[in-house]
């Protein structure tokens, strides 16, 4: 069996699509007809078969194409992957976590064999078969964090914990929602969240930090976040904002369904055992409006959420220019009937 990996692009001709099965498993982030920030953190435990939570580290049909896009981003801008000198041990922790989880969830695609510190890693989709010494950086072609995150979907921030705070001291960030690792590396939890509106006043980050600094080994947690992106572009970095920003002016009533994408981040939080750091994988899922509205409940609910979103949030998420066009288009799919509670399609 195994996953059939799609050949597709996240730039230029934008051939990214979701298969019908992947539309149904999309992690729709709204459990009710409105949205406001909350500390929506829950234990990261395995969910139903066929959902994105079937495995704690999800690999899907976009895996190979996403890894190719990441390689392109890194070739253009190596600063998207950085690790401050004291974070190497945490990089090994992350390598172990991702190899173990991917091999556990997808044995037909990944195999990890350990003999003491002699490890063999086979990644069939990417054609990799490497033997290396765990803990010895000279036995890998990249540092441990870069090596494994070139083979894992999603962005990764590794946080050092000290003085009651979390410090973003390493990361692989190529599919970010408009924030710069190169600028934010070394900042603490409050500083790198500083540009987020409204949430500071509500005390969200104080409570979230308290929770995250107490994440225990073997008990990861997760939350969902969302924004919107024009075209299925993974690399919406501030570095390239002047290149992708003009896309936002191209939305018309005719192309909303094809161009506008809901972008959902499944963020999880894991205590790392050797370094006592925390890793924060940010897994990005994209779905175009045409695909999303194949589920009538999602169409109705998204219409109400976007229509009623507070102005500050719409601005922060960059929706301002095309929100009226999008709301108008979605309104035609909303007959005003009630939506069932919960995230899933009916």
């Amino acid at each position, binding site marked *: 069996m195994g996953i059939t990996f799609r050949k597709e692009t996240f730039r230029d001709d934008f051939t990214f699509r979701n298969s019908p099965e992947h539309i149904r498993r999309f992690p729709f982030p709204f459990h009710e007809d409105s949205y406001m920030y909350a500390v929506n953190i829950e234990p990261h435990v395995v969910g139903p078969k066929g959902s994105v939570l079937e495995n704690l580290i999800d690999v899907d049909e976009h895996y190979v194409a996403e890894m190719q896009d990441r390689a392109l981003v890194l070739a253009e801008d190596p600063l998207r992957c950085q690790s401050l000198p004291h974070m190497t041990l945490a990089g090994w922790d992350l390598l172990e976590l991702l190899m173990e989880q991917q091999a556990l969830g997808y044995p037909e695609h990944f195999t990890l064999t350990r003999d003491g510190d002699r490890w063999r890693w086979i990644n069939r989709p990417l054609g990799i078969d490497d033997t290396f010494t765990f803990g010895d950086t000279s036995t890998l072609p990249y540092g441990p964090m870069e090596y494994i995150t070139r083979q894992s979907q999603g962005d990764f921030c590794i946080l050092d914990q000290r003085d009651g705070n979390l410090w973003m001291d390493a990361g692989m960030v190529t599919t970010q929602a408009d924030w*710069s690792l*190169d*600028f934010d590396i070394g900042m603490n939890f409050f500083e790198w969240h500083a540009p987020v509106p409204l949430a500071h006043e509500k005390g969200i980050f104080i409570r979230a930090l308290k929770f995250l600094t107490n994440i225990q080994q073997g008990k990861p947690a997760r939350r969902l976040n969302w924004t919107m992106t024009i075209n299925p572009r993974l690399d919406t970095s501030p570095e390239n*904002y002047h290149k992708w920003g*003009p896309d*936002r*002016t191209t939305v018309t009533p005719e192309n909303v369904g094809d161009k506008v994408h809901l972008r959902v981040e499944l963020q999880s939080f894991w205590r790392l055992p050797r370094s006592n750091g925390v890793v924060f994988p940010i897994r990005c899922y994209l779905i175009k409006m045409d695909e999303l509205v194949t589920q009538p409940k999602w169409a109705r609910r998204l219409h109400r959420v976007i229509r009623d979103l507070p102005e500050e949030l719409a601005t922060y998420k960059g929706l301002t220019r095309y929100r009226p066009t999008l709301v108008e288009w979605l309104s035609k799919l909303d007959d005003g009937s009630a939506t069932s509670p919960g995230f899933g399609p009916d």
Partner: protein
Amino acid sequence: MAAKSIISRPVYGTLSPQAGKHHLFVADAEGALAIIGMAKNAPAGFFDGAEIVFIPGSDGKYVAALEALKPAQLHLAPSFPSLLPRLRQTLTNAHMGLRLYLSGTEGLIGQAMQVALEAGIDHTSMQTEHRGSLARRMQCVHCKGITENVTTQPASCSHCGLLLLVRDHYSRRLAAFQGVCINAEDRSEIPPMEEIFR
């Protein structure tokens, strides 16, 4: 003082004497006034273990007042780059117990802090006091070039020429505020440039 802003915007305090064996001051121009102000609260003999590195500016103002504090050493430097090798050397040879005091313009405080962070001093343990110009060091997030002494909003990147919104988001590691293209979505929108960081 700067107006209330976002959390990543640096907050400066008022210099106060810290427990320690050695005291290293780095200051420019009106930053001297912060040291002179602090000296009033300093215990007797405090400046016997103090070194002041000062960039006086063209008028040479405040040099005599700093001399009057009788620090163990007073070093005058014409510019920040010219004092860098000395500062690095001092920090490399320093022991725990050295305390750092930075006062003056944001550019000076930020750049000296950057060097001290590399030497292993936590930013929370450094004393800072802002005096003088509010001109900003800005990093262009697009081309990564640093533009010094930015006084306008928006500002042009001196490297790539993009018109940038100067954010309050600040990186200690880069000692710079973030500049992001202000008209990325539609280049024909050109907001007026106002002088606001003086």
